[in-house]
């Protein structure tokens, strides 16, 4: 090791170790066939969702009076049929993908930001602050979560942006606990002591050393939270508290389709398949990530 890199090693060994951990993990992840297939599938779904307007001649809110609740019909380019209002289901499924994926990712991002910050600070600072912060988490945990989300929706209205915030505001709790646990186990490590000895301020230690090292379990948990959030949104849609018409989500489409299971099965089958596939993919990726990031696995 040259002088320069040794100096680097002293000042920021965490970064070097971090990088090789990620490279190692990436190799293992890509070797996991289920996870690999899932990532490809998800990319396809996301692509379809983005390109939705180009893939179908039908606007997502156009009503076709003579083709209400019609089965799949290639002649009219209704590949998935139409819904109870005569709107094309294929394009609506893809628009629903946009909403469901957006809600999933953004709500998880909200919970990530709040949860990681909260947990890292609580774990690292420790003492009274830690006690207070985690007490708050404990109290929040004892609130029936669904009721809370519903209340937030009811009080603040049903703008799609608020759905992210409402769900994220409830999901951050577990994230905070995980991050705090991880922070506690890292706190005692030598490189942290070294940074402290070198006079790095607490805030910088947290952001540049603690957080990158807890990201392992956090990333795993994130990929597992996204499908949960999508399901929560579908439950809200089922209750009638989801996105406003004419926007739609997989949950809303599935709730409509479930009522018509026997008379119009296409209304259920297509969005449900998309939902199931996406949830499977996220879960396989999450499992794969966890296997990949755990150094003790074979």
């Amino acid at each position, binding site marked *: 090791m040259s002088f320069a890199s040794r100096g680097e090693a002293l000042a920021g060994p965490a970064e070097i170790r971090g990088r090789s951990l990620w490279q190692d993990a990436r190799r293992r992840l890509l070797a996991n066939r289920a996870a690999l297939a899932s990532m490809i599938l998800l990319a396809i779904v996301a692509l379809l969702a983005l390109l939705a307007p180009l893939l179908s001649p039908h606007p997502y809110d156009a*009503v076709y009076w003579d083709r209400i609740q019609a089965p799949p019909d290639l002649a009219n380019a209704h590949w998935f049929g139409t819904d109870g209002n005569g709107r094309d289901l294929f394009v609506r499924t893809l628009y629903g993908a946009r909403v469901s994926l957006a809600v999933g990712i953004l709500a998880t991002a909200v919970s990530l930001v709040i949860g990681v910050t909260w947990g890292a600070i609580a774990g690292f600072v420790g003492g009274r602050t830690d006690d207070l912060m985690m007490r708050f988490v404990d109290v929040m945990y004892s609130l029936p979560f669904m009721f809370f989300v519903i209340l937030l929706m009811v009080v603040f209205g049903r703008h799609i942006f608020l759905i992210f915030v409402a769900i994220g505001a409830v999901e951050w709790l577990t994230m905070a606990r995980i991050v705090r646990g991880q922070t506690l186990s890292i706190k005692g490590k030598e490189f942290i002591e070294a940074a402290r000895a070198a006079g790095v301020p607490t805030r910088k230690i947290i952001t540049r050393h603690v957080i990158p090292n807890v990201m392992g379990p956090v990333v795993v948990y994130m990929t597992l939270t996204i499908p949960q959030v999508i399901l929560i949104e579908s439950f809200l849609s089922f209750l009638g508290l989801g996105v406003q018409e004419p926007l739609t989500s997989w949950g809303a489409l599935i709730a409509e389709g479930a009522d018509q299971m026997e008379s119009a099965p296409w209304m259920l089958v297509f969005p449900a398949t998309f939902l199931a596939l996406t949830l499977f993919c996220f879960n396989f990726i999450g499992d794969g990530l966890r296997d990949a990031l755990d150094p003790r696995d074979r």
Partner: protein
Amino acid sequence: MGAYMSAERPRSTRIALGLAAGICLAPMGASALAAELHIANSGEPDTLDPHHVSGTWENRVIGDMFLGLTTEAADGSVIPGAAESWTVSDDGTVYTFALRDHTWSDGTPVTAEDFVFAWRRILEPATAAEYASLLYTIRNARALNEGSMEGMEALGVRAVDDNTLEVTLENPTPFFIEQLTHYTAFPIPRHKVEELGEEWIRPGDLVSNGAYTVVEWVPNSHIRSVRNERFYDAAKVAIDAVSYYPAEDRNAATRRFRAGEIDIQYDFASEQIDWLRENLPEETRISPYLGIYYYALNTRKPPFDSKAVRQALAMAIDREGIADKVLRTGELPAYSFVPPGTGDYGEPSYVDWKDMPYPERIARAKELLAEADHGPDRPLHIQLRYNTSENHKKIAIAVAAMWRQLGVEAELFNTEVKVHYNDLQQGDFQVARAGWIADYNDPQNFLYLMETSTGVQNYAGYSNREYDRLMDEADRAGEGAHRRELMHEAEAIAMEDMPNIPITYYVSKNLVSQAVQGWIDNTKDIHRTRFLSVQR
């Protein structure tokens, strides 16, 4: 609940499955000797106290328990109930009822005092009865209920003797006898209320004078009523016990119906209609229902203070399209506010463009919008509100698409029921879905919604002096052609001004098992259990 098979599978399979199911279900069939009816009610009642309810589903349970002065026959027509006969004074304001000899289910005689007690109680301001206004036809009722008069004895009802009740009205009211079938006019057991206070409605303590008495209520599971042996007509009552299940999830209730667990489902989900017509045609009962589905326009704020805008929006709606293609459950397109066939009203006052072909109406609507300065260069952006329900959503989507032809962009806004009505009552809306089911079979019950004095229920905030004058005169006119004419004139004015856009008239949609006899479709959708029987 025996092994009742639905009409879906071939006979041999049915027998085989029936045997298997019978073995599984055998313990349930132990009490099958008693004739039991299982009803999927459209909601859970708030209470069994007739003074604190306002829903059709509550009427089903309570209406089987209590007998008013008059009551509904199997076909919905008005027949004598607790009163055997009555006479009316010449000026039409004093009714004298001769009560029949009958008792409460605990043997205590039902007297005129029970009615006096009940009506005073419901109009007592402290009771805060939500629906007391229905009895405002009685002299001084309104003043007493609103608190501007004191002393309940001033109410225009008195017990001449145990079996004679005398009622004095504010004005001659043609629909008064009909009104007495409503639960707001039911008697309540005075002796029980005095003894138990608010606890008088507890199953177990509850006594009734009708065909049934509630004996068990497990909230959100079921309400069970058994026959009242002391009912004056008990000999003709075929069903021994009836259970009401609160079936808010209509599709789940339909599945129960198909499996034979439910004999009657009230108000099945409209979207099932195609499947039901194909698979359960005999059981699917659709019938005109006295009610109107409409969109209220907030006339207090622009752009809905402009008559041209209101008319344009009304014209652009293809009601036949909504009824035939979107709803498909036989609703009739509505071009008037009062449904045809209401009372003796005859043909209501339709809008004058009723027979104009749709494309012409669109063209005319565009002209109207341009006149009102909302042509293509200044398109309208409005908010269309509806409360959470599959049908409301479908209709709103369809209407928004229709309005788009005029260049109007309608933003759909769904809220839950409490918020919806709260905002409507505060006048915090632009266009909002509303509905009205008749309390009694008379056009006045619809038209009063647009009177200025009606208050918050007049969501549109419509106020037309001529309209008010005509309706006021009609109230005082007494039965007959003159009254009808006045109401027709008033309705015509309202249809010209268009504060509320009528969309469709309601239909009742029920599933009735073929084992049930005695069910007659009627416009009130009232089917008292005392007239029904089951043949399993």
